[in-house]
């Protein structure tokens, strides 16, 4: 095994990835547990919704940047994916806003 042929920084990165993946997975499991506890807490509705949205976003970002390697890939991959993500998020926001307007509430709703 010729270890000298491998750049030391790259070799160290590959070695540390295993530990990083395990740590991130444990963190994601802990955040999920906290989310489940959060919904039973007697706090204001808006506060709980904000907490859940933030924790989901954190989990989402950890998966795409660590597990999906965006952190180490070329920036174009991030840009490409975020184009789809922004369009999807924008569509969701627009639809939710549109249907929350009084004139747009479905006629059959209670």
């Amino acid at each position: 095994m010729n270890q000298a042929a491998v750049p030391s920084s790259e070799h160290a990165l590959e070695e540390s990835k295993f530990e990083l993946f395990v740590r991130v997975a444990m963190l994601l499991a802990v955040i999920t547990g906290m989310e489940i506890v959060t919904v039973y807490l007697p706090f204001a509705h808006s506060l709980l919704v904000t907490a859940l949205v933030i924790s989901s976003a954190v989990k989402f970002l950890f998966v795409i940047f660590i597990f999906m390697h965006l952190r180490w890939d070329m920036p174009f991959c991030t840009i490409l994916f975020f184009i789809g993500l922004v369009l999807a998020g924008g569509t969701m926001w627009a639809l939710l806003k549109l249907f929350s307007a009084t004139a747009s509430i479905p006629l059959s709703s209670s």
Partner: protein
Amino acid sequence: MSTAAAGTIDHHRDPTTSTGIPNKKLLMWAFLASDCMFFGCLISTHLIYRLHPPPGVPAARDVFNIELTSFSTFILLMSSLMMALAVNAIQKGNLRSLRFSLLTTIFFGCIFLACQVYEFSHFVSEKHMTITNSIFGTTFFTLTGTHGLHVLIGVIWLSSMLVYSFTGRLSEKDSIDVESMGLYWHFVDIVWIVIFTAVYLLEYI
């Protein structure tokens, strides 16, 4: 494969393409970006009808089983870890570790699917909620069913890759194939992260 050879392959860049990104990876990211919009529409449709429910729609809290869904979420997160380790293994040319990680990912994926089948059958037989008898059932089954279909496709893809690894034709040079499959699997996981919060947890507040 020797470590020296492993050091010569850059898994994040491909100088032979104009973008510097392997074509298969670029294709997968473009597909995932489009799939984001697909799931975005399904999730927003479900949320709109949950915010403005028609009369007679069952209360979601009475229907859902949060313990089972939390367990499914945990299983899918752990499958993502094993998938990341599988990609790491093939990038080091470690086929033995790759097979173990793929097998574990398939196992976790099957558990997730089994939980979903149980959940669906429980909703239909015990809670009398079908895809046609309420708007809640329609949007819920369409959204989670589409996600389940994605998981099923992922499990089939993973299984075929596992079988392929035994043919002796899979090596570190083909790591982009495993990485593309990994991207798809992680995407299934991030979609579930959103569904778990938007569809399940928000009902309990």
